[in-house]
């Protein structure tokens, strides 16, 4: 298996493990399944998906794998609910991907490498609030609950 695909699958499992830990005290239930994926870079493979259900067993949100390779990221999982969809991006490079930029220099310009997104620190899962602004927020417990509430309109006490 390609190392990039292996990393994506491992990091997805790690994210889901964190989500299960965060949701454990809330009374929601979680079910997991494997979904079929097909990407030009990696061929056919299976990846984990997760459904989050309320106490009555109704699905309120879903974590859906999208791709192990995307432009500007090393994998993508979407958090989808009835109200919103949020894109979570895996960034495996410290500081995130670097892009070539140009700074004025004297009478010309200087090529520099800059961050594709602002706010990226250590590798992990990030949410980019606005593509145009390009600011990334690391997915932690607080952010995840905000996104889950926004996606599903479910109120967590």
């Amino acid at each position, binding site marked *: 298996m390609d190392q990039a695909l292996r990393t994506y699958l491992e990091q997805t499992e790690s994210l889901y493990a964190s989500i299960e830990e965060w949701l454990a005290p809330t009374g929601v239930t979680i079910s997991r399944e494997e979904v079929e994926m097909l*990407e*030009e*870079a990696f061929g056919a493979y299976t990846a984990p998906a997760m459904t989050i259900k309320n106490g009555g067993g109704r699905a309120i949100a879903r974590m859906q794998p*999208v*791709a192990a*390779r*995307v*432009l*500007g*990221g090393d994998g*993508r999982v979407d958090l989808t609910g009835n109200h919103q969809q949020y*894109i979570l*991006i895996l960034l495996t490079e410290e500081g995130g*991907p670097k*892009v*070539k*930029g140009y700074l004025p220099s004297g009478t010309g310009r200087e090529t520099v490498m*800059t961050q*594709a997104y602002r706010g990226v620190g250590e590798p992990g899962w990030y949410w*980019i609030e606005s*593509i*145009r*602004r*390009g600011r990334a927020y690391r997915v932690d417990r607080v952010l995840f609950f905000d996104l889950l509430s926004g996606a599903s309109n479910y109120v967590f006490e």
Partner: protein
Amino acid sequence: MSSSDALVEIWGVYQISLDSLYVASQSVETKEDSLGLLKNTLFMQISDEEALRRIDSGKSGIDDYLVLSLWTVFERQLYEYLQQESGRLAERGASSFSSSFRKKLEREIEYWRIDDILDDIFGAVLEKELIGSVKQIKKYRDWLVHRNPKKAFPGNITPQRAYDTLSDVLSCLRDHPDLSCATEETGVEACRKGD
């Protein structure tokens, strides 16, 4: 801006848009070197395949928008010729009858069907084959606008064909001696009738 100039401008914007999409697709293809160009765009966070699919979809969209834009300008110009001809009636006589007639005509012109205008009026100054081509473009334009599943797909009209045909017609009309905006200098036009 004349309608012919408007068509040229629309065509120019279309060409630039095509080139921009081409540059975008090249940036996706060479992302290792071009990620900086994609930063802060909607291409971030999607796969290469999805990005290229959306670029293709964008190309198809602007092809459609081109035909719609060209037709809007073209149709407006035809109605302006009719209004101008109606104005000529006013120059011929100032009787209350002719004035009433002209006013009624100008009100009703906007409701005339374009196919009838092409056949019954512009058929006097344009070749039948050219009118046929224009009506095909009109049919395609209507299909784009309405996408009526009950109507058969009229057949693809390429952007180039739409631009060439409508430009040719406006060129003919502009130079035709029977139309009020014609100039003294007219070239030999294969589209003109009755010469």
